[in-house]
């Protein structure tokens, strides 16, 4: 059985790598036009992302929220929903985490942290569950409604941090009161990387198990694959929709909590740092496979981490990393259409596998 599928496996490895190479070439062209040496840029990106242990830690710090955020798209995708409300769920999750953290101020740090995590999870979950409810009960397009909810979430954040929740001492950048150093999430032993990375990896692993190995995931895959078949099997499509949207939103909400509790220490406009849209891209590139999302998040985290050095050493605008990110994802999404198009990857049952 395994022997038969080696070509498929090879295809699944070669096509994304090929896409990455093509994206690098295109980006090189862009850099050349902008007046930088493409090869110098490549090596800078590599060094800034993965070159040293210290830079790799930077990459991992950025990868953690991306992993969590990607699940907000990847999980509902198994039910056939295209949700891009990750940004909003992160913001609402972060806000709610701060609110709980401040409310529990003075309790033991572990209690505060658990409370903040729960606050982020529940708020983010409900936020996206709202999208699911609109979809299932009122047939509102989930992509559009989740996108619009992003703007609402950001507006709520701005309103609260410059209003009721504002710390008067935050002058230039309106913020909430800080949760206090004692309540901040710690770092993994021997690193600068916070526990959010662990949350991300564990959440992706659990999401994979949930979808592939549990009856809940099975039911979701049926409903995502064919709604009519799901109805004939009596599956509660509405409940499944709500549950999976809640879980997706909960992961993004946890990402918001991690950003607040491990990086910023308070809620302000930095919460809205594009990890949501990054997560959407990660989910699509990973083809909604939670395990692949871990790797793709590290890759994208690396690209994001290299943005500073491009500006400093190559005199390129700081949006250059975003151009690279955009190119990578466009090419990777395009490469999806190439599956099954190459003769060498077609399964040939008659031919014995040879070393390619």
């Amino acid at each position, binding site marked *: *059985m395994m022997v038969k599928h080696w070509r498929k496996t090879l295809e699944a490895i070669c096509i994304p790598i090929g896409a990455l190479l093509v994206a690098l070439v295109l980006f090189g062209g862009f850099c050349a036009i902008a007046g930088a040496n493409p090869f110098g840029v490549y090596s800078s990106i590599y060094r800034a992302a993965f070159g040293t242990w210290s830079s790799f830690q930077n990459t991992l710090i950025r990868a953690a929220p991306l992993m969590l955020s990607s699940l907000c798209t990847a999980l509902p995708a198994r039910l056939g929903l295209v949700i891009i409300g990750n940004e909003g769920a992160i913001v609402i999750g972060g806000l709610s985490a701060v609110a709980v953290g401040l409310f529990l101020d003075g309790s033991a740090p572990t209690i505060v942290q658990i409370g903040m995590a729960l606050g982020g999870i529940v708020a983010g979950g409900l936020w996206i569950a709202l999208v699911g409810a609109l979809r299932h009960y009122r047939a509102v397009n989930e992509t559009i409604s989740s996108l619009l909810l992003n703007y609402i979430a950001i507006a709520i954040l701005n309103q609260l941090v410059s209003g009721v929740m504002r710390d008067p001492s935050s002058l230039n950048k309106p913020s909430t009161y800080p949760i206090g150093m004692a309540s901040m999430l710690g770092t993994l032993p021997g690193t600068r990387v916070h526990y959010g990375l662990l949350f991300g990896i564990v959440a992706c692993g659990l999401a994979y198990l949930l979808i592939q*190995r*549990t*009856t*809940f995931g*099975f*039911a979701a*895959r*049926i409903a995502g*694959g*064919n709604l*009519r*078949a799901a*109805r*004939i*099997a*009596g*599956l*509660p499509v509405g409940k499944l929709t709500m549950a999976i949207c809640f879980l997706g939103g909960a992961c993004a909400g946890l990402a918001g909590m991690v950003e607040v509790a491990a990086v910023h220490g308070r809620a302000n406009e930095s919460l809205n740092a594009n990890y949501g849209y990054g997560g959407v891209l990660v989910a699509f590139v990973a083809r909604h496979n939670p395990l692949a999302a871990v790797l793709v998040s590290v890759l994208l985290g690396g690209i994001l981490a290299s943005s500073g050095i491009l500006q400093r050493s190559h005199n390129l605008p700081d949006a250059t990393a975003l151009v690279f990110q955009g190119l990578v994802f466009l090419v990777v999404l395009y490469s999806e259409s190439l599956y099954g198009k190459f003769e060498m990857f077609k399964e040939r049952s*008659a031919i014995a596998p040879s070393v390619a």
Partner: protein
Amino acid sequence: MLSDLYSSTQTPDLKVIDLAKQFGSLIALDRVSLHLQPGSFHALLGENGAGKSTLVKCIMGFYQPTSGEILIEGRSQEIKSPSVAHQFGIGMVYQHFTSVPAMTVAENLVLSRFDSPKLINWRQEMEQLQAFMEAAPFQIPLTRPVSQLAAGEKQKLEILKQLYLKSRVLILDEPTSVLTPGEADEILGLLRKEVTAGHLSVLMISHKFREVMAFADEVTVLRKGRLAGQGFVKELTIAAMAQMMLGEERTAKTVAKATLIAETPVLEIHNLCADKDNGLPAIATLNLSVHSGEIVGIAGVSGNGQKELVESLAGQRVPTAGQICVNGEPYTATRAQMFRHQVFVLPEEPLQNACVSHMSVSENLALRTFDRPPQSKQGFLLLRVMRQMAQTLVQTFSIRTPSVNTPVGNLSGGNVQRTVLARELSSDQIRLLIASNPCFGLDFAAVEYIHSEIVAARNRGVAVLLVSEDLDELLTLADRILVMSDGKLVYEGAIAEVDLTTIGRRMAGHSS
């Protein structure tokens, strides 16, 4: 007059000589010859996988034959694509519908043209279409979206498309599998007339001997890719054709119906109302009961509310009013109720209705049971058990699949049907079975198998509601026949006392 539809071009003479087609190591077609004379009605018989589709796909230019020739008007022609076939006046009506559901009949007809204009003058097109439709052998409202057509009407549209394209050689792939016998006879009769008048020649793939006997001039029988027999229909008997097709004398295996007194009501429907997709009422206050050990057949022309009735019972449509009771308890088709009352459904178009095409055979077989032991434990799937149970079902129901891990969408239509059948009939304690056109498009070995399974279930005391557009099927299987017309049940009779004339009149919507 229909003859106005055709330009002055002649109906071409089509000859196939020693045609062979090989796929890898599989010989799908082995040196088959066939002659379709102008103005003749030729039937192509054979079981699933006998090579009928391969043969017509070679003629249509979908496949390039490995060897052999296709002669048109005596000259060897290479048919590279369907549009080349169209230039020779050859057109095909497929078993599966090829119209765009969201577009109207008129739009679909214009779309089907090979020379679609860049700009469409709708006023002019509509005038031409109106004229075409008036002269056509059957009519469909031009402005209606295809999604609102019943299966029978969709099939008529497929045939109309070919007439509209001025095809002079019509290849029909089981054209009547979605039609009522009345509709089938009407359509084939009209085509027959055109053939006799020399306007058309028809090559029809069929499983139904009755239609072959009634309408075809000549018949070619294929078996396992080879020519198994050929001849004039008037010189052949059904038994002889069946023997060519199966390679042996066919013995009809019908399960004897046990005499049961149907007393315990299993399914009771009270004043049920349901709407069509477009919000118009499809079923109006329908009352019906099905007892244990009884097959209740619902006859009717497609599009009279049968689809909506089955969907309401299967959980795919929410009724607007009324109540469904199973075993005396209200039934809303939740998973728990389905399991408690052991309700199973054989829907039509199983791949669209009851399977997830990209999921594996084993996963599809587990659709009803994946959340219970032994296939799962505390919310976790036991994939090994699932696969083992699937293996057993694949063997018991002779599902032909490379493995249980193959996506069900890769299987042939008949095997998808068997997969659903295996899932729905394998439970020991079925109480209620709802079947809708369960034999659509299957060869007769499979039909016979499904029929015997349904009767066997009835003999075990299962209550069966059988909705079918095939009256012969209902007459063979049902204990009681009801006729549905315009969303209402307009006739009821025990099988012993049914009166075919009355049934026909009621199906056609006559009240007396």
